[in-house]
C-alpha cells in the first residue's frame, strides 16, 4: 500500500508543555502562600484579594485546571497523533484550544482574587467563564474526534479511550453543575437549592477528581509508562476491564462527600456502595501500571523518569485505597471536615498527578527538542526532594486530622466536651501546619528544578517543530476481515458510537442519583418556619460567598452527640431550600456556623471581623477590616431578588419593590445594636456603619440556623 507523508504537530505539544511548567509553579506557589496563612494569619494583612478565602480557590483551580489540565493536553496532543498516525485534525482548533484555555486561566486568576465566585468547589468560576470553558472544551473535543476519524491506525489504543471519556464526562459534569441564573455581569445563582445543589455539586466534585485528575492521567500512564520502560503494558485485557468498570462505577460515588449530612439516606448509601466497589477497577489499573515495569526494575534504579512513575502509581494505589475506606460511614465520621481529607487529596495530586506529569515532561523534553535531557542528576534530585516533600506534606496532616477528630469528639464524664472551645483544636495542630508548609516548599523546589532542567534542554535542542512521518492510509475493511471479530473491536473502530456508549455509561449513574432528588418532593421535607432571606441578609450571604468563608466554615451539623453538643441542633434538609448555592463547606478549619445566629451579639461579630484575635485570642482567621470601610453595594439587590423569584424563592412583589427600604430598616437596627457598646461609639461613632458591608454580613450570620428555633417557639 502507498504510504502517505505527513507531519506531527510538535509545536502544540511544546506550547502546552511550557504552559504546564509555568502554571505548575504558579499554582503551587499560591498553595504555599495559602499554607503559610495557617501559621502567619496576618502576613497579608488587610489586602482583600490575598485573603485565604479568595486564594484557596485560586490554588485549587490553578493546580487542577491549569497545571494538571495543561499537563494532560501535553500528553494527549503528543500521544494521540502518534497512536493514530495522523496530525491533529485542525491546527487552528489546536491553537484556539491552547490560547482559549490559557485565557480562561488568566480570567480565573483575576476574578477569584476579586471575590467573583459561585462558591461551589472546583467550579467557583462565574458564569461568563463557565461559558468560555464549555466552548473551548467543545473545540478540543471536535479536534479529538476529528483526528480519530482521519486516523491511519485501525485500533484505538486504551489511552485514547480514557481521553474520550475525559472529554465527554467533563462536558456533562461542567454543564449540569454550572446551571445558574445570571443576575449581573459576574454574579449568578445556582438553579438548584440546598440539598439538591449539594448533591449536584458533589456529583460534579467527585467526578472532577475522577475525570479530570484520574482518567486523563490513566491515559497518560497507559502511553508513557510503556514508552519509558520500553515494553508493552502488562495486560491489555486488564486495561479493557479497567476502563469500563472504572467509568461505570466512578460516576455513582459522589454522595460519599455528603455522608451524615442532610442528604437523603438512600443517596448516601448508594454513594458508599459504589465507592467501596471502586477499589477493584482502581487497583486493577494500578497493578497494570506497576507490572508494566516487570523485568525492568533494574532500569528503575537509574532512570529518574521511571522512578517518578513508580511513586506516582503507588500514590494512585494509596489514594484509591483510602478513598473507599473514607466512604465507610464510621471512618467518614472521623475523617470528614478534618485535615485527613486534605492529606488524602494531596497524595493524589502531588504523587499521582504531579509525578506522572513530571516524569512525562522529562521524557518529552528530550523527544520534543531532539536532544538529551540537560541533567539526569538534577532530575534525580527533583525526584528525591519531591518525594520527601510529599511525605512532609501528608504525614503531618494525617496526624492533624486524627488529632482534630478525636479532640472534637471527646467528652468529660459529666457529659460536657473536653475541648469545648474549638480554638484549642486549632492551635493544637499548628506545628503540623508548619511541617506541611515545609513539605510544600520542598515539592515546589523540586518542580522549579524541573523547570530549569527543561529550559536548559530546550535551549540546547533543535528548533524543528514539525516531525515528518509516513504511514499508509486505512484500507477499506473487507467483509472477510470483520467475520468473527468481537463486538469490542467493532465498537473500537466506530469512534462516534464508542463515545456515545461511554457517555451512556456515565449518564446512567448520574441520572439514577440526581433525578429522584429533583423530581420527588418528599425527598426534601419542607419546614414551615423556614423563610427566604431578607434583602440585607441576602446581600450579607453574597459577601460570605465573596470572601469564601465556606472554605473554612461548614454549615452542616451532623447528627452526632459531639456536634449537637458543640454547635446545636443538627441540620435538616428543609432548612436549606432557599440556599442558592448551598454553603455546607467541606472542611472545618474554623467551627461550623450553621447555628451561629443569636449565639453572639452584633458587637461580637463586628469586633471579630475587624480582628478575630480581639474576641478569640490565638485565632488563625484572617482580618476583614475592609468590611468596615466599604459601602454595601445595593444596586443589584432588586435584580437578585427577581432572579431568585424566577428560580422559585417566594418573595412577593411588594417585598421586591420595598427591598431597599427593608434593607435600610434592618441595617439601622443593627447599627443601633452596635451603638450600645461605648467602645464602638468612641471609635466608629461617625462612621455611618449602617451603609457598610459589615452590617449585611452580621445580618446574615445572625439569621443562620435560627428559623427552626422560631418554629419551636410557635409550636409551644
Amino acid at each position, binding site marked *: *500500500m502507498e*504510504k502517505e507523508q505527513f507531519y506531527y504537530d510538535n509545536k502544540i505539544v511544546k506550547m502546552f508543555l511550557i504552559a504546564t511548567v509555568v502554571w505548575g509553579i504558579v499554582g503551587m506557589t499560591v498553595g504555599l502562600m495559602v499554607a503559610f496563612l495557617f501559621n502567619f494569619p496576618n502576613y497579608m494583612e488587610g489586602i482583600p484579594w490575598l485573603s485565604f478565602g479568595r486564594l484557596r480557590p485560586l490554588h485549587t483551580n490553578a493546580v487542577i485546571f491549569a497545571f494538571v489540565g495543561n499537563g494532560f493536553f501535553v500528553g494527549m496532543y503528543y500521544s494521540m497523533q502518534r497512536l493514530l498516525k495522523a496530525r491533529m485534525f485542525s491546527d487552528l482548533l489546536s491553537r484556539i484550544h491552547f490560547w482559549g484555555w490559557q485565557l480562561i486561566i488568566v480570567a480565573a486568576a483575576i476574578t477569584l482574587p476579586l471575590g467573583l465566585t459561585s462558591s461551589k468547589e472546583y467550579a467557583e468560576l462565574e458564569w461568563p467563564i463557565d461559558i468560555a470553558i464549555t466552548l473551548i472544551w467543545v473545540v478540543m473535543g471536535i479536534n479529538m474526534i476529528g483526528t480519530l476519524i482521519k486516523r491511519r491506525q485501525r485500533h484505538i489504543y486504551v489511552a485514547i479511550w480514557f481521553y474520550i471519556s475525559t472529554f465527554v464526562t467533563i462536558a456533562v459534569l461542567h454543564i449540569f453543575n454550572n446551571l445558574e441564573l445570571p443576575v449581573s455581569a459576574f454574579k449568578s445563582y445556582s438553579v438548584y437549592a440546598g440539598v439538591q445543589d449539594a448533591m449536584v455539586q458533589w456529583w460534579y466534585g467527585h467526578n472532577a477528581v475522577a475525570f479530570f485528575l484520574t482518567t486523563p492521567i490513566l491515559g497518560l500512564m497507559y502511553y508513557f509508562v510503556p514508552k519509558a520502560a520500553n515494553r508493552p503494558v502488562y495486560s491489555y485485557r486488564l486495561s479493557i476491564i479497567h476502563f469500563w468498570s472504572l467509568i461505570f462505577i466512578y460516576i455513582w460515588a459522589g454522595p460519599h462527600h455528603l455522608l451524615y449530612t442532610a442528604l437523603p439516606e*438512600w443517596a448516601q*448509601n448508594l454513594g*458508599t456502595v459504589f465507592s467501596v466497589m471502586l477499589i477493584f477497577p482502581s487497583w486493577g489499573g494500578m497493578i497494570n501500571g506497576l507490572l508494566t515495569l516487570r523485568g525492568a526494575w533494574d532500569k528503575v534504579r537509574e532512570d529518574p523518569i521511571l522512578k517518578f512513575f513508580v511513586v506516582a502509581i503507588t500514590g494512585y494505589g494509596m489514594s484509591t485505597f483510602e478513598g473507599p475506606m473514607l466512604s465507610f460511614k464510621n471512618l467518614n465520621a472521623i475523617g470528614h471536615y478534618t485535615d485527613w481529607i486534605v492529606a488524602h487529596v494531596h497524595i493524589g495530586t502531588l504523587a499521582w498527578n504531579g509525578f506522572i506529569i513530571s516524569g512525562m515532561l522529562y521524557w518529552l523534553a528530550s523527544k520534543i527538542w531532539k536532544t538529551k535531557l540537560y541533567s539526569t542528576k538534577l532530575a534525580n534530585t527533583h525526584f528525591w526532594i519531591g518525594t520527601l516533600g510529599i511525605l512532609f506534606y501528608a504525614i503531618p496532616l494525617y496526624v492533624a486530622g486524627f488529632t482534630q477528630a478525636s479532640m472534637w469528639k471527646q467528652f468529660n464524664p459529666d457529659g460536657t466536651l473536653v475541648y469545648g472551645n474549638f480554638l484549642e483544636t486549632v492551635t493544637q495542630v499548628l506545628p503540623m501546619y508548619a511541617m506541611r508548609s515545609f513539605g510544600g516548599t520542598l515539592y515546589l523546589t523540586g518542580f522549579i528544578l524541573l523547570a530549569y532542567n527543561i529550559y536548559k534542554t530546550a535551549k540546547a535542542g533543535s528548533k524543528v517543530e514539525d516531525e515528518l*512521518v509516513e504511514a499508509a492510509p486505512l484500507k477499506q475493511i473487507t467483509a472477510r476481515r470483520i467475520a468473527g471479530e*468481537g*463486538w469490542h473491536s467493532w465498537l473500537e473502530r466506530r469512534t462516534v458510537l464508542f463515545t456515545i456508549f461511554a457517555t451512556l455509561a456515565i449518564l446512567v449513574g448520574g441520572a439514577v442519583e440526581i433525578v429522584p432528588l429533583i423530581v420527588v418532593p418528599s425527598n426534601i421535607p419542607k419546614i414551615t418556619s423556614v423563610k427566604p432571606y431578607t434583602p440585607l441578609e441576602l446581600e450579607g450571604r453574597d459577601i460570605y460567598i465573596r470572601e469564601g468563608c465556606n472554605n473554612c466554615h461548614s454549615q452542616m451539623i451532623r447528627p452526632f452527640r459531639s456536634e449537637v453538643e458543640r454547635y446545636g441542633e443538627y441540620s435538616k434538609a428543609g432548612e436549606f431550600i432557599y440556599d442558592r448555592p448551598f454553603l455546607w463547606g467541606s472542611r472545618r478549619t474554623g467551627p461550623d456556623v450553621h447555628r451561629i445566629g443569636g449565639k453572639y451579639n452584633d458587637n461580637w461579630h463586628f469586633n471579630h471581623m475587624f480582628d478575630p484575635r480581639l474576641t478569640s485570642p490565638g485565632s488563625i482567621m484572617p482580618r476583614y477590616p475592609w468590611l468596615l470601610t466599604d459601602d454595601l453595594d445595593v444596586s443589584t439587590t432588586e435584580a437578585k431578588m427577581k432572579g431568585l423569584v424566577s428560580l422559585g424563592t417566594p418573595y412577593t412583589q411588594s417585598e421586591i419593590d420595598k427591598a431597599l427600604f427593608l434593607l435600610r430598616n434592618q441595617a439601622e437596627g443593627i447599627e443601633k445594636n452596635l451603638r450600645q457598646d461605648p467602645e464602638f461609639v468612641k471609635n466608629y461613632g461617625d462612621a455611618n456603619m449602617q451603609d457598610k458591608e459589615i452590617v449585611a454580613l452580621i445580618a446574615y450570620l445572625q439569621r443562620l440556623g435560627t428559623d427552626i428555633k422560631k418554629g419551636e417557639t410557635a409550636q409551644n
Partner: protein
Amino acid sequence: MIRFVKHYFEGIANVEIYPIISLLLFFLVFVTMLIHVLKIPKKNIEEISNLPLEGDENNNNYE
C-alpha cells in the same frame, strides 16, 4: 456495614427485587465484558498493546 443501609430500604414496597436486579445487571455487564476480553486472540492483544512502542519513523500498519 449493612446496618447503615438496612433500615432505610425496609420501607420500600417490593424492595427484595432491587438487589436482585442490580446484581443481575452488574453480573451480566461484567461477565459479557470478561468473556469478550478473554476471547480476543492473543495476536490481536499483542498487536494493540505494542501500539505505543512503534517507532515514530517506522510505521507499519499491521493490516
